[in-house]
């Protein structure tokens, strides 16, 4: 018994508090489950609480849902799954590479180069759009390429001013997450529409939404994976370097396999974010690649008070993540996520 264990009555007070919180946490989920098994009549008649005791369970909602009588659930579920898994895989992979680079290699970016990027992008876009009379999308692409080229070029020559190191770059990545997503989502919608006018359809496509989600998830992936890589023993890699193993083989053959638990946890956290994400999907999809949160939110206005169907629909969105929560809590027990928050 450690010094920290509760003794005497305070132990029971803590237990009572936890039980109240447990009831508050679980009751809504319990309610959704039992409502999805109620018959339409059973819902309208007023609240009932215990199956078989005060109402007779029925499978109406589920059979309607699974037979497809209630809109395209299968298509949406599959779209959500494909986008969720591929965006999380891509974000975990790209983010892990960046995080590894930021832990092991030295980066120096001159502040002035970053300023040049912003100014050229800004000015180039305005110039192309308003002075040269180019289309929005064309001027965007030109401005982007020019800004990138000038920023890279300028970092090669000696420039005065402060130099940003690895920590600053990480901070820059993570701070993306602080921005209200509405800023990006709305502008991204406009940009995608412009691209669509040029023949690259991005609104309501797999590519468009997946890349938006990858960009949206990268900050958190880099944040989590950086701490994970920093905790790995560097000696293994040094030994491999002595043997002249190329860096890319060290990364793929040694570092990635060693950090499998971290990668899995990061992948699952990203998947949960993407799966539940609402705003980007609301702006960037309309029918074909609609995700589950949008469909579930739509149930509300379409169905009115058909709570049995709505509950079943909500549960379809909930259950995959609850299964994941089980796996995640197992990983947490092994202390995996502890390092990630310091």
């Amino acid at each position: 018994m450690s010094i920290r264990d509760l003794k005497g009555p305070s132990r029971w007070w803590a237990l009572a508090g936890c039980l109240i919180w447990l009831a508050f946490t679980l009751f809504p989920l319990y309610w959704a489950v039992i409502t999805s098994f109620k018959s339409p009549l059973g819902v309208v008649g007023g609240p009932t609480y215990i199956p078989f005791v005060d109402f007779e369970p029925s499978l109406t909602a589920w059979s309607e849902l699974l037979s497809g009588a209630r809109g395209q659930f299968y298509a949406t579920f599959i779209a959500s799954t494909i986008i969720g898994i591929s965006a999380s895989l891509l974000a975990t992979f790209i983010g892990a590479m960046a995080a590894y680079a930021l832990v092991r290699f030295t980066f120096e970016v001159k502040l002035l180069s970053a300023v040049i990027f912003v100014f050229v992008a800004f000015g180039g876009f305005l110039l192309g759009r308003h002075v040269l009379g180019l289309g929005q999308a064309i001027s965007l692409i030109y401005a982007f390429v020019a800004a990138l080229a000038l920023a890279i070029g300028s970092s090669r020559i000696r420039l005065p001013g402060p130099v940003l190191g690895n920590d600053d770059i990480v901070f820059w990545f993570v701070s993306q997450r602080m921005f209200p997503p509405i800023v990006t989502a709305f502008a991204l919608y406009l940009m995608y529409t412009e691209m669509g006018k040029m023949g690259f359809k991005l609104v309501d496509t797999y590519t468009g939404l997946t890349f938006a989600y990858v960009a949206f998830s990268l900050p958190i992936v880099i944040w989590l994976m950086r701490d994970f890589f920093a905790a790995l023993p560097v000696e293994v890699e040094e030994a491999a370097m002595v043997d002249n193993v190329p860096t890319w083989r060290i990364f793929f053959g040694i570092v990635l396999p060693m950090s499998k638990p971290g990668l899995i946890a990061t992948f699952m956290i990203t998947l949960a974010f993407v799966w539940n994400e609402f705003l980007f999907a609301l702006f960037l999809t309309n029918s074909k690649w609609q995700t589950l949160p949008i469909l579930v939110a739509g149930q509300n206005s379409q169905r009115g008070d058909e709570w049995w169907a709505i509950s079943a629909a909500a549960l379809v969105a909930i259950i995959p993540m609850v299964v994941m929560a089980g796996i995640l809590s197992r990983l947490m027990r092994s202390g995996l996520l502890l390092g990630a928050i310091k």
Partner: protein
Amino acid sequence: MTRQDPIKHFFIWPALLIVLAISIFPLIYSLTTSFMSLRLVPPVPPRFVGFGNYTELLQNPRFWHVTWTTTIIAVTSVTLQYVIGFSVALALNRRVPGEGLFRVSFLLPMLVAPVAVALIARQLLNPTMGPLNEVMTFFGFPNLPFLTQTSWAIGAIIAVEVWQWTPFVILMLLAGLQTLPDDVYEAAALENASPWQQFRGITFPMMLPISAAVVFIRLIESYKIIDTVFVMTGGGPGISTETLTLFAYQEGFKKFNLGYTSALSFLFLLVITVIGLVYLAVLKPYLEKHR
């Protein structure tokens, strides 16, 4: 520690390019749009208006109302989340009986889609078919219009936020509590320090840095709330529960007033940045004192 190797560019550029193209570039694009008068419905040719959109917004009482509503929701729900989350984390850290079961189930809400939570909340709060009002009636209280009266609707949104995000606070604070050293508490027990003294003198100060980080993350995230409100009240009754993101959505997607919406989203960014800076400035002396 770190080393030079040209291959580093190969590692970092994919991430950098995606973030530049999909996060930073839209920002630049919408910043330019925010200085223009641009409408899709009815189509108006773009015209440079300088700070016109911004002044128009700052004079719009709806903007201030929406900012105020969002602030109330964010501050109240984060305060509740922190207080409840800290208490639960303390109990779990002290190995309350049944701790293993609590740990697993307490995390559940965090992973549930906010739209699904909002739909379930609508059922629970339904005036005629929901269980909450039946319980109220049973105990002799009047039936309450939870989602159709302003103060109750805001309360309901806060309750849903607390339900969903307290688990995050529990998770982070529990991880922090587990790193605290035992010997300090042993010394305190020898000095006969009461549990409250131990909490005030040891636990709380030592947890201050992580608490600051958790509250910061939650506060910033709460300001972005849209999905819960979108489903639960749709901003109603009237605009009384409308939040900043929902307001921007209505302006941008229902009215297609592009310049105005871009200006709104930048003001929003400004509001969040100011809140973040004020928060850090207020907290800094405390954090340094306990370092």
